[in-house]
């Protein structure tokens, strides 16, 4: 008889403190949804950075103090003086009317900054607003809460604006510039995915008292510096698709049990932390445990997953085509390793039924390259 899912997830994490989902880690679900290793590490609340480091592949993710400072300074500037700049933008872009200036500061509640307290108050004021008996228009740093895989994840949007066309709008304040009306698409996408988690959490909150999800717009308002100035500008970003995609990923997490059932009994990623928080578990043993779980490595992971360097070394050791990225991979549909590609290309391996066509193409390509080498082009 197998243990219930939660117990098994706790066992996977071991003695370490549970890390909750954040908007960032939820957004990351979107990046590589098919990766089992990542899904399990996240669902069990394991510390991916610590695990990767102990397995010998520390993640190089750090954020520059400059970027952090710039982000904070810009957000403060947008909200200074009763959100003066923000009001101007919302009046321009969302046709916010003149009387709509009510401001609720949800950063702390009477000096109490605990997530639960802020969440209670957030719920209170947002529901009042939704029912039409509250003066709030701008909700500064509301604390939302979304149950993910049976655990609470607290989420904190930069700002929620209310009652533009009777709907809540999530406002994301980012410090990357919109130059001549255009921003870096990767950064916009990341900001949008993050905002999707807020939209879903907000809808969830309202749904509990029977308010339709239409009350929350799936268009986000992106506020960012205009050109090279320090003045903000605003743009709408349609997040419909990403909201749908993220909802799907969240539903998958609920089915994490299916993945857990496939794991060998007794598997754990415990680091064996001693009282000084030093990892005592032998690194090889940890690596062995990790190797039991399939990972779906893509070079793109290097940009956002703490485990990426570990997974890449594993993919390299397996001669996996994943190392070379999708452009190469898609040329060899149905083949997984470089060894297999070369084996078929050189005629050393006999193709299976469904590899016959691919093998012919490979042999042809190999012949062409061999001819070229004879021509003396390559060493």
């Amino acid at each position, binding site marked *: 008889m197998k243990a219930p899912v939660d117990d098994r997830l706790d066992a996977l994490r071991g003695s370490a403190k549970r890390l909750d989902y954040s908007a960032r880690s939820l957004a990351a679900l979107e990046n590589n949804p098919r990766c089992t290793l990542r899904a399990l590490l996240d669902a069990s609340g394991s510390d991916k950075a610590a695990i990767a480091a102990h397995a010998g592949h520390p993640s190089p993710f750090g954020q520059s103090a400059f970027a952090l400072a710039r982000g904070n300074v810009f957000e403060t500037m947008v909200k*200074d*003086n*009763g*959100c*003066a*700049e923000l*009001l*101007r933008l919302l*009046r321009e872009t969302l046709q916010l009317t*003149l*009387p709509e*200036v*009510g*401001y*609720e*500061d949800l*950063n*702390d*509640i*009477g*000096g*109490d900054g605990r997530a639960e*307290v802020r969440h*209670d*108050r957030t719920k*209170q004021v947002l529901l009042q607003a939704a029912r039409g008996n509250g*003066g*709030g228009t701008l909700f500064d740093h509301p604390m939302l809460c979304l149950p993910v895989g049976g655990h609470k994840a607290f989420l904190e949007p930069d700002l929620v604006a209310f009652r533009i066309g009777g709907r809540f709008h999530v406002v994301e304040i980012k410090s990357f510039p919109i130059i001549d009306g255009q921003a870096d698409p990767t950064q916009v996408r990341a900001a949008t995915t993050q905002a999707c988690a807020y939209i879903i959490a907000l809808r969830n909150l309202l749904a509990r008292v029977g308010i339709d999800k239409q009350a929350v717009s799936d268009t986000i308002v992106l506020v960012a510096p205009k050109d090279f100035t320090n003045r903000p500008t605003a743009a709408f970003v349609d997040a419909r698709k990403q909201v749908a995609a993220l909802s799907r990923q969240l539903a998958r997490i609920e089915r994490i049990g299916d993945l857990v059932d496939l794991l060998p009994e007794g598997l754990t990623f415990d680091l064996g932390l001693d009282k000084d928080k030093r990892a005592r578990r032998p690194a090889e043993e940890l690596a062995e445990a990790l190797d039991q779980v399939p990972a779906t490595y893509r070079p793109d992971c290097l940009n956002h997953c703490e485990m990426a360097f570990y997974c890449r070394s594993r993919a390299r050791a397996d001669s996996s085509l994943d190392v070379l990225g999708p452009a190469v991979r898609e040329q060899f549909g149905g083949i997984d390793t470089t060894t297999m590609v070369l084996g078929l290309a050189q005629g050393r391996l006999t193709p299976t039924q469904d590899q016959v066509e691919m093998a012919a193409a490979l042999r042809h390509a190999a012949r062409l390259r061999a001819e070229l080498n004879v021509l003396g082009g390559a060493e």
Partner: protein
Amino acid sequence: MSDPLDALEKSISSLRRAIRDASAAGDTERAGELRAQLRRAERAWDALIDADEPAATPARLEPTAVPAAQGAQLPAREHVHRALMLLGTPAAPKLIVGVHEAFFPGELSASKLSSLRRDEERSYRSSPGARPYYLCMALAHDLLTPVRALVTISTWALEQRIIGPLSPRVDFLTGAVHIAKAVHNSAQSTADGPSPAALRLLWRFAVNIPDALPRSAPGHEGALDPQQVIDAAEAELEVHADADRAVRTEAARRARKSLGDDQQLFGAPLQGVTRLRTARA
């Protein structure tokens, strides 16, 4: 064949690797030493390649000696008081510094302000009423707790120091009116007219108030008309004033009833959300 540059480059590469090995082994001290060595080597390389080309260094030193103008020697709390009196509304340290720099001489920094606030409360508690005024807190309309980062003056009416949902906007517009008046006055009374910093400050306010900028404004602070800013701000104030006043008056009444003198100045003790529920019910 032993080019000094080649030799240097070789040693730079090995230093870099040694740093990697030291950091990997957790030897931060050694890594630090090696980094210093590396910097020397890179400097030497730099010196060898462009011995004859001193690179242009763009940094320029701005004149820092500010003439000790009248009032420059005042204590910081006087500076803050003066700026707040001009503004007439609760304000965040950043805005107080902005107003100070726009209209008054002397040095005032935002970091100075935060220590000042603690001193004021201490001073009040040790001998209440010993000073003609205290720099104190703005109060949240519902919990009557101190509001993050807003500074006020003890001599102001409680209503003026309460922050309701509409108050940030009302105070912004009120501040705009007062700044515009101050700019107008210095245009009338001083030979040089308002300082560039004052015009910039007014411009920052004006761009965020509907119809406060001349229609043909080329986005330049020189084209500002203080009277137009006043008219525009007052027009929007009209929209919010009554509702805001009602909340402030009600909260002030409640504060007078339930808070002691010191709490009226520095806020009710923090009590979390349970109290809030009863306060709002």
